[in-house]
C-alpha cells in the first residue's frame, strides 16, 4: 500500500553483495598499499622533498673589502643596493608577465627575453639577475606587485662605490659580473653565474682577498615564498680591506698635473717599489662597471682611439727617447768607455752613410755634460763603441724588455732589441747603424712609464732595483704573498752594483737637467730648495698609422717623456711622465716637477706637524762625504763637479744621536768615527729638510775646516709616525750590516 511496487520479498542476491564487499576490500587494500608505498617505503625521500620545499638557502652576500690609501684614507667604499632577480619556478606564465616587468623596471622587453634565454638550461629555481641596483621607484613597483609577479625577488647587496671622477681608476680597476668565458677559467672555479668579480687593476689581482666568502641563511618559507622564520645562518666572511701604497694627495696632484693630456704618470718610491701615484689618461668612471655597463657606453670605451681602459702607465709601450741615455751612461761608465770620451758635437754623426742628427751643435761634450745637454752625438758615438750587445746586456739587466712584476694585471714588457733578437724575428743580422738609433732610445726600443720609473729610480739609487707594487705586502696572507711573484713574473728586486764614482756622475748629470743655466732640456723646471733631477725624452712617432696622418697635425707630434727623481742621490721619489704627442720634452718635465713639488711640500708639512720620536732609533743613511782639507769637498756637496770626483766618498751608515754607530763598509769609516754629526742633523731639522727620522735633502757642508763634512743623501722612509727599523730599507746591504750588533736590534732602545 505504500507503493506501486510489486517486488515485495524480492531480495538482492547475496552473491552480488559479496562481490561488492570484496570489491570494496580490494579497493581498500589498494589504497593501503598506496599509503604504504608513500609513507613507509618512500618516507625518507618525501621528507627530504618536504624539507626542500620548506627550507630555502638564501645567500648572505659578503661585502667586498674596502680600499684605503697609504694613510688609511678611504678610496673605494661599498654602498647598500637592491637587485631584482627572477625565479621562473615561482610562476607558470613568466613569459606573459615580461612586458609588465619590463615596464615596471625600465628594461627592454627583448633584452629581458634574451636574458631569460641565456638561462634556459639553468634549473627553474635559480634566480636570474634581471636588474641590478634598482631605484626606489622600481623597488616600490616590485613590492606592489608581489602577488601578480611572484617570480620577482629582491636581494640586498653591497655595491662598489668608486671615486667618481676616474681617480686612480686604472690602478683600482673595476668589478663586473663574471662572464661565461671567465667561468671556464680556473681562477673563477668557485664562482657562479651572476657573481661579481674584479675585472681590472687591484680589484682583479686581489679579487680572492677582496671578495670574502658569501654566507647563507636557511629560511623557512611557505608556498608563496614568504619567509616565516629561519633555521640557521652561516655568516658571510667580509672581504679583506686592503691598504694601497698610493698617497691620495700625491695621486690627486698627479691627476691634476696631467690634466686632460693623453698619457700617464707613475710616481714610485724607488727604495721599496711602493707606487705613490699612478695616472693614465684618458680615464673612465669605474662606477659604470659597478652595476652593469650598458652596451653603448662599453662600445664607446673600447672603440675610443685613445684607449681609456688601457692603463698606459704599465701598458703603453713606446720608444723611451732620450731617457734611455741614463742607461747608456751606466753602460758606458761601467764598461769604462764613457769616462775617456771627449767629443765635439757638430750637429750629428753619420759614420755609416746615413747622417744622424743632434738637436744642436753642442761643441765639446763629455760624459759630465752629455746628460744635461742630452747630446745625441755623444750617445751615437758611445753606442757605436759599446755595440748593441753590450747595450742590450745592461738594458736587459736593468729591466728593459721585461715586465717589472707589478701586482697589476696586463703589464707589458716593452722591447729591448739585440742582434740575437733581430736574427730571431727578422732573420737578418744587426747593422751597426741601427745601434745609433737604439743609443738615443729610438729604433725598436720600447718601454712603459713604469719600467722607466723603476730603471731610472734604481740607477739613481746606485743599482738597487725594486719590484713595484700597489698593495702593502705585509697585509697579505703568506701563501698569497708567496704566489704573487709567480702570478706576476718580472725583473723584480735586483741589485746591480754601480760604481759610486759612476753613480755620482750620472746623478749629478740628472740634477743639472732641471737646473737653470747652461743646459736647457728642462732647465726652467728646477724647483728652488728641492734637490730634484731627471731626464727628459722625445720620441718620434714612427708607426705607420701615424705616418699616414702626417698632414693632420697633432698625431705626428712626438711622444714626450720625463723621468724625475728627488733627491737626486738615492731618491725617495721617482716620477715618470708620458705625454703622447706632447711635442716638447720640457712640457712633461713641468708636469713631473709639479708632482715632485707636491710630494716634497707634503713631506715638509708633515715633518712640521709630526711629534718627534722620543728615543731616536738608529737611522740608516747613505751619504757622500769629503775628507777635510780637500778643496773640492764643498763643491761636490752642492752637486757642482769639475770632472775630478776622486775625493768624494760614498757609503752607508747607521746614525744615532749624531754618531755613526754602524757602517756597511768598515774601511771607509775611520775618517768619520768619533765626530759628532748631530749638528748637521739638527740644522737640517730646523730647515725642515729632515724628517724626525733623519732625512736630509739639502745641507750645507760643515763649517769647521778640520771636521769631515757629511752630506746625508737619504734616510729611512719619511712620513711614518713611528720609528722604523733600519733594516726595512731595501737599499741596505743587510748581510754586511747584520754583522754589527747595533743593527741586529734595529729598533730604538
Amino acid at each position, binding site marked *: *500500500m*505504500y*507503493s*506501486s*511496487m*510489486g*517486488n*515485495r*520479498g*524480492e*531480495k*538482492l542476491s*547475496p552473491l*552480488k*553483495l559479496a562481490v*561488492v*564487499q570484496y*570489491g*570494496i*576490500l580490494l*579497493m*581498500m587494500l*589498494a*589504497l*593501503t598499499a*598506496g*599509503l*604504504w*608505498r*608513500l*609513507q*613507509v617505503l*618512500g*618516507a625518507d*625521500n*618525501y*621528507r627530504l*622533498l*618536504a*624539507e626542500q*620545499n*620548506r627550507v630555502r638557502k638564501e645567500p648572505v652576500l659578503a661585502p667586498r673589502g674596502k680600499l684605503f690609501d697609504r694613510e688609511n684614507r678611504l678610496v673605494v667604499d661599498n654602498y647598500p643596493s637592491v637587485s631584482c632577480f627572477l625565479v621562473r*619556478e*615561482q*610562476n*607558470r606564465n613568466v613569459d606573459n608577465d615580461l612586458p609588465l616587468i619590463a615596464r615596471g623596471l625600465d628594461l627592454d622587453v627583448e633584452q629581458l627575453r634574451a636574458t631569460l634565454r641565456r638561462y634556459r638550461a639553468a634549473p*627553474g629555481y635559480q634566480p636570474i639577475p634581471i636588474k641590478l641596483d634598482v631605484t626606489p621607484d622600481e623597488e616600490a613597483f616590485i613590492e606592489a606587485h608581489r602577488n601578480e609577479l611572484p617570480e620577482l625577488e629582491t636581494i640586498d647587496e653591497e655595491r662598489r662605490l668608486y671615486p667618481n671622477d676616474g681617480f686612480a681608476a686604472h690602478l683600482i680597476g673595476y668589478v663586473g659580473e663574471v662572464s661565461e668565458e671567465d667561468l671556464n677559467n680556473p681562477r673563477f672555479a668557485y664562482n657562479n653565474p651572476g657573481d661579481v668579480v674584479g675585472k681590472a687593476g687591484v680589484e682583479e689581482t686581489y679579487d680572492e682577498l677582496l671578495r670574502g666568502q658569501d654566507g647563507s641563511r636557511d629560511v*623557512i*618559507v*611557505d*608556498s*608563496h615564498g614568504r619567509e*616565516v622564520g629561519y633555521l640557521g645562518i652561516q655568516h658571510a666572511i667580509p672581504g679583506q680591506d686592503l691598504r694601497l701604497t698610493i698617497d691620495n694627495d700625491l695621486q690627486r696632484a698627479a691627476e691634476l698635473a696631467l690634466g686632460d693630456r693623453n698619457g700617464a704618470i707613475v710616481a714610485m718610491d724607488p727604495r721599496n717599489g711602493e707606487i705613490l701615484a699612478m695616472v693614465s689618461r684618458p680615464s673612465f668612471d669605474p662606477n659604470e662597471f659597478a652595476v652593469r655597463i650598458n652596451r653603448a657606453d662599453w662600445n664607446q670605451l673600447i672603440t675610443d682611439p685613445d684607449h681609456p681602459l688601457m692603463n698606459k702607465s704599465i701598458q703603453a709601450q713606446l720608444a723611451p727617447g732620450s731617457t734611455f741615455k741614463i742607461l747608456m751612461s751606466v753602460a758606458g761608465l761601467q764598461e769604462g768607455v764613457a769616462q775617456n770620451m771627449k767629443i765635439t758635437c757638430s750637429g750629428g754623426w753619420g759614420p755609416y752613410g746615413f747622417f744622424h742628427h743632434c738637436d744642436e751643435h753642442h761643441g765639446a761634450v763629455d760624459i759630465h755634460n752629455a746628460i744635461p745637454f742630452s747630446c745625441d752625438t755623444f750617445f751615437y758615438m758611445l753606442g757605436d763603441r759599446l755595440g748593441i750587445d753590450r747595450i742590450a746586456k745592461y738594458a736587459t739587466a736593468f729591466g728593459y724588455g721585461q715586465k717589472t712584476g707589478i701586482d697589476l694585471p696586463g703589464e707589458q714588457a716593452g722591447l729591448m732589441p739585440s742582434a740575437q733578437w733581430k736574427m730571431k724575428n727578422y732573420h737578418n743580422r744587426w747593422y751597426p747603424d741601427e745601434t745609433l738609433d737604439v743609443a738615443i732610445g729610438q729604433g725598436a726600443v720600447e718601454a712603459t712609464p713604469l719600467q722607466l720609473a723603476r730603471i731610472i729610480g734604481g740607477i739613481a739609487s746606485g743599482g738597487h732595483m725594486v719590484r713595484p707594487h700597489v698593495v702593502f705586502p705585509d697585509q697579505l696572507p703568506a701563501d698569497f704573498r708567496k704566489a704573487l711573484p709567480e702570478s706576476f713574473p718580472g725583473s723584480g728586486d735586483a741589485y746591480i752594483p754601480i760604481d759610486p764614482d759612476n753613480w755620482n756622475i750620472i746623478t749629478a748629470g740628472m740634477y743639472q737637467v732641471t737646473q737653470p743655466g747652461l743646459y736647457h732640456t728642462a732647465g726652467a723646471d728646477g724647483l728652488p730648495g728641492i734637490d730634484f733631477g731627471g731626464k727628459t725624452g722625445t720620441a718620434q712617432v714612427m708607426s705607420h698609422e701615424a705616418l699616414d696622418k702626417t698632414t693632420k697635425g697633432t698625431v705626428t707630434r712626438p711622444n714626450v717623456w720625463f723621468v724625475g727623481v728627488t733627491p737626486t742621490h738615492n731618491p725617495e721619489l721617482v716620477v715618470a711622465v708620458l705625454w703622447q704627442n706632447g711635442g716638447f720634452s720640457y712640457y712633461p718635465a713641468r708636469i713631473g716637477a709639479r708632482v715632485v713639488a707636491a710630494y716634497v711640500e707634503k713631506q715638509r708639512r708633515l715633518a712640521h706637524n709630526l711629534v718627534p720620536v722620543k728615543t731616536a732609533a738608529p737611522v740608516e743613511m747613505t751619504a757622500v762625504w769629503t775628507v777635510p782639507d780637500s778643496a773640492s769637498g764643498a763643491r761636490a756637496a752642492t752637486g757642482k763637479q769639475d770632472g775630478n770626483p776622486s775625493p768624494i766618498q760614498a757609503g752607508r751608515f747607521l746614525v744615532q744621536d749624531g754618531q755613526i754607530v754602524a757602517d756597511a763598509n768598515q774601511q771607509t769609516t775611520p775618517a768619520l768615527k768619533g765626530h759628532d754629526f748631530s749638528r748637521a742633523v739638527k740644522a737640517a731639522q730646523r730647515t725642515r729638510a729632515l724628517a724626525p727620522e733623519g732625512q736630509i735633502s739639502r745641507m750645507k757642508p760643515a763649517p769647521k775646516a778640520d771636521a769631515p763634512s757629511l752630506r746625508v743623501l737619504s734616510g729611512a722612509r719619511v712620513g711614518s709616525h713611528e720609528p722604523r727599523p733600519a733594516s726595512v730599507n731595501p737599499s741596505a746591504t743587510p748581510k754586511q750590516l747584520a754583522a754589527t750588533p747595533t743593527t741586529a736590534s734595529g729598533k730604538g732602545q
Partner: protein
Amino acid sequence: MRRFLSFRDFDWTLLGIVLVLCTISVLEIYSATLHTKYIGFHTKQMYWIAGGLVAMFVFAKIDYHKLIDFVPWAYGVCLVALVAVLAVGQKVLGARRWIKLGPMHFQPSEWVKLVLILAVARYFANLGGRSLTWKDIFKAFALVGVPMLLVLKQPDLGTTLTYLPILVAGLFLGGINVRQALILGTCGLALVAGVWTSGKLLKPYQKARLTSFINPDNDPRGTGYQLLQSKIAVGSGGVWGKGAAKGTQTQGDFLPIPHADFIFAAFGEEHGFVGAFFVLLLYFFVLMRLIQNAQTAADLSGSLIIMGVVAVLTFQIAVNVGMVIGFMPVTGIPLPLMSYGGSSVLFTFLALGAVMNVRMRRFVN
C-alpha cells in the same frame, strides 16, 4: 500493519563510527586552517555536522516508500534547478554551480545525487529483478545521463563522475548479464576515447588535470603541483606522522586546500601511516555496515537505495584518497565525512538518513 518505529532500530554502531570520523574531520580542519585565512572553519563544520544529524533523523522518519513515490517530482525539480543554474547561476572560478537563494548559496548538483539514488532504486526495483533488456538499460542511461550532461555543462566534472557509480551499481544489482556488461564496457571505453580526442567536450584544464597525475613533475606549478605536494605531504608523514598541527606541508600552505579536498593528505602528514590506515579502516567498517544493512532491508528498493549510497561513498573515497596518494587525477571530489563543506556534509548525512530509514523499516511486513 504499521509497526511501531523505534530509534532502537536505528544503526547506532554505524552512527558511532561516522561520528568518530566527523570528530577526526573537525580536529584536522582545525589543524589545517590554523595559519590560514580559513581559520575557524572547524566550528562551521561542527554546525554543518549538527545540521546534518538533524536532517538525517528527520529524513529517516519519512518512510522511504513515500520518498520513492515522490521521486519523479523531485527528479523534475532537479532538472529545472540544473537548467536554472546554467541560466542564472553564479559564476565562481569559471564554473556556474551555485544558485543564490536569499542568503543561502545552493548547489543543486549535490542534491541531484540523492534524488538519483532514489530514482535509480525505484527504477530497478520496479523491474522486479528480471533480467534486463537493452530497452531497460537505455532507459536507465537516460535517467542518469540527462542530469549528468547538465552538470557537465556547468562544468563540474567531479560531480558528474559521482553520478556514474549510481548507474553502475543499479545496473549491476538490477540484473545486467555478462554479455551486456561487456558490450557496455566496450562502448564506454570507446566513448571516453571519443570524448578525449574530440577536444570539444572536455575543457583543456580538465584534460590537464586528468593527465598531470601520470607525470606531475612535468608541470610542477600547475595541477601536477597539487598532486606532487600532496604526495610529498603524505609521504613525509612517515609511519607515525609529524604530529597534530606540525605538518610542514599543511602549515606552510604547500598543500592545496588542506581542509577540503586534500584533508586526507593533511591528516596523513600529521598522523602518518598509522593514522591514515585507521581512517581507511573506519571507512571500510562504514561501507561493510551499509552493505549489511542492504542485506537486511525489507525489500529490493530499500536494498538498492542503500547500495546506491554505498556506490557513491565508495567512489568518492576511492577517487579522493586515490588522488591524494597519486593514483588518480585531481577531480575536486571531496572525501565524505572528512572534507570541509556544507553541501558535502549535508548530502552524506541525508544519504545516511536514507540508509537508517531503510534499516528502521527492515521488519516491516
